[in-house]
C-alpha cells in the first residue's frame, strides 16, 4: 500500500475508515527455514534484510507481545555513529548509511531527521578524547567536527557555558546524526518483511527450544511447536531469560534505563545535545516535547520502570546545563530494560548449540544499530559467516580476552 496526499485527504473526509492493516496476521506454519525470536526493531530488521537482501523468505518472526512493545517503542530515537574502537565504529557507520537510505529502501516515512549530535567537552582531557574519537570516526568514513567554545556558543547559545564545575570548552559534532521516529522504524520493517512473505506472529511466546545432540531444530511456543533449520534469538532486554531456556548463561545483566518527555514547547533545541560529564542527553521531538534521559539506574531490573534518585540526578543535570528549562513540565517518564553486556558492546554470533544464533547485549545503544544489526544478523544467518563490520561481536570474546570496551570500565555492566 502506498500513501499519498490524495489518500490522506480521501480517508480524512470519510472518517479514516479506509485504512487497511499493513501486515497480515498469519497462524504459524509447522516449519520454517529461519525462526526469529523477538519482533522488536532488530528482529524485524533481520527479517527484512533476510528477505530483501539475502533472498530467504521462508521466515517467521515470533513476538511475545505486540510489535514494537519493547525497546523499539521506548527509546529516545537517537541515531549516530560516533564510536571510537574499530570493533564498533565501522559497524555503526554502516548503520548510519543504512539509516540514510532507509526510507527509500522501505518506501516508508520513518521521519529520519539528520539534525546533528553535539557531545559537549568540559575539560582538556575530554576535548583530547573527543579529538581522538573524531579521528576514528573520520577514518571509518563518518563525519566529525571538533568545535571550540565559540563555535558551540554560536550553535546552542542557550547553554550554561560558565558553570563553575563543568564549563563548556567545546564539543564533538556529527552533523549526519539525528533522530528517527522509533515506532515507524518497526512498522516500516514489519510491512516490508511481510510483503516479502515473512510471517509475523504476535502474541506467541517462545517457552523452550527443541535441542537434541547439541543441535537446535525448532522452538516450543505458546502457539505450539515450530520447527526451523535455524533459530535466531533477538530479544535484547530478556536475553538471559530466553537463552536460559536453551541452557545457556550469558555475559549480560539486565538493567533499567529511564527516559523522559516534557510537554510540547516551541522549537528550542536544534539537534541532540549530550552532557556526558553529567549524564544527560536531550533532543526535541517534532511535536515539541523535549526528549531526554541520563544514565541507567545501576541495579539489575526487569521492571521497565526506575526509581527517584536517577530522576533527581537527570533533573539536576538539566538545570546545570540548561537553567532556562527549569519551568518546563514533565509529561511522561518510563523505563526500558537494557541488555548490559560485560564490555558495553553487543553480540551477534552463533552459539555453541548448532542451529541456534544469538543477537543481544545492545546496552542502551540498540536503536541506532537497528539497520546494521538486522543486516549483520541476516548475513550471519544466510551465509553462516559474520558481516564484515560485525566480526568482533563474538560471544566468546570474553573467554578469548578480545573485549570491545569503549569506556575501559571492565566487566562491570552498570559502569558502561
Amino acid at each position, binding site marked *: 500500500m502506498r500513501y499519498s496526499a490524495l489518500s490522506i485527504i480521501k480517508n480524512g473526509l470519510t472518517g479514516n475508515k479506509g485504512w487497511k492493516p499493513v501486515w497480515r496476521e498469519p497462524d504459524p506454519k509447522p516449519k520454517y527455514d529461519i525462526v526469529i525470536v523477538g519482533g522488536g526493531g532488530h528482529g524485524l530488521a533481520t527479517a527484512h534484510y533476510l528477505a530483501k537482501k539475502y533472498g530467504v523468505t521462508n521466515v517467521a518472526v515470533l513476538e511475545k507481545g505486540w510489535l514494537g512493545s519493547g525497546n523499539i517503542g521506548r527509546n529516545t530515537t537517537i541515531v549516530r555513529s560516533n564510536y571510537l574502537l574499530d570493533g564498533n565504529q565501522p559497524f555503526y557507520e554502516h548503520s548510519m548509511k543504512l539509516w540514510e537510505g532507509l526510507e527509500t529502501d522501505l518506501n516508508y516515512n520513518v521521519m529520519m531527521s539528520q539534525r546533528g549530535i553535539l557531545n559537549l567537552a568540559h575539560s582538556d582531557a575530554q576535548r583530547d578524547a573527543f579529538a581522538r574519537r573524531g579521528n576514528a570516526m573520520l577514518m571509518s568514513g563518518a563525519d566529525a567536527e571538533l568545535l571550540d567554545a565559540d563555535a558551540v556558543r554560536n550553535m546552542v547559545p542557550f547553554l550554561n557555558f560558565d558553570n563553575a564545575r563543568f564549563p563548556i570548552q567545546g564539543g564533538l559534532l556529527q552533523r549526519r546524526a539525528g533522530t528517527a521516529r522509533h515506532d515507524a522504524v518497526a512498522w516500516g520493517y514489519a510491512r516490508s518483511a511481510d510483503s516479502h512473505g515473512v510471517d509475523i506472529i504476535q502474541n506467541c511466546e517462545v517457552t523452550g527450544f527443541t535441542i537434541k545432540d547439541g543441535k537446535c531444530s525448532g522452538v516450543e511456543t505458546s502457539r505450539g511447536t515450530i520447527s526451523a533449520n535455524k533459530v535466531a534469538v533477538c530479544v535484547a532486554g530478556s536475553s538471559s531469560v530466553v537463552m536460559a531456556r536453551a541452557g545457556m548463561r550469558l555475559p549480560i545483566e539486565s538493567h533499567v534505563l529511564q527516559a523522559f518527555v516534557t510537554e510540547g514547547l516551541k522549537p528550542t533545541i536544534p539537534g541532540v545535545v549530550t552532557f556526558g560529564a553529567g549524564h544527560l542527553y536531550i533532543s526535541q521531538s517534532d511535536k515539541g516535547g523535549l526528549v531526554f534521559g541520563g544514565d541507567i539506574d545501576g541495579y*539489575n531490573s526487569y521492571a521497565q520502570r526506575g526509581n527517584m534518585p536517577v530522576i533527581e540526578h537527570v533533573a539536576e543535570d538539566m538545570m546545570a546545563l540548561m537553567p532556562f528549562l527549569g519551568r518546563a513540565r514533565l509529561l511522561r517518564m518510563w523505563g526500558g530494560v537494557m541488555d548490559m553486556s560485560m564490555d558495553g558492546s553487543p553480540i551477534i554470533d552463533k552459539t555453541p548449540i548448532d542451529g541456534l544464533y544469538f543477537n543481544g547485549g545492545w546496552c542502551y545503544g540498540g536503536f541506532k544499530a537497528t539497520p546494521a544489526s538486522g543486516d549483520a544478523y541476516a548475513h550471519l544467518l544466510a551465509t553462516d559467516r559474520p558481516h564484515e563490520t560485525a566480526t568482533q561481536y563474538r560471544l566468546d570474546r570474553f573467554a578469548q580476552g578480545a573485549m570491545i570496551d569503549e569506556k575501559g570500565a571492565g566487566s562491570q555492566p552498570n559502569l558502561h
Partner: protein
Amino acid sequence: MIINHPLLGPRDASEFVHLGDATLLSRPDWQAVDAIAQFHEYLYQRDNPAGEYRELWYHEQGDRSWLIVTRNTITHEISAVELARDVARQEQLS
C-alpha cells in the same frame, strides 16, 4: 528503593553502590586445574534472573559496609538484607 540496613535501619538506596551478583563473594580456587574456565564464568557469565536475586550493595555514603540484598528484579521488592561479612563467615564455617 529503601534498603533496611541490619545495623542502621532503613536507608535510601541512593546511599549505596550496586556491585552485582552475590556469588562474586565466592572466588574460584586459583590453583584448580580448570581455574581459567572457572574465572571466566566468575568474571563474565551471569544468571541474571527475572525474579529473586541476591546481590552485593556497598554503603558508600554510610558506614561502608557490604550488604547482601535479596531483591526481586521484576518488582524491586526487597525481602532480606544481610551483612556480607556474616554470610561470608557462615560460608567459611560450613
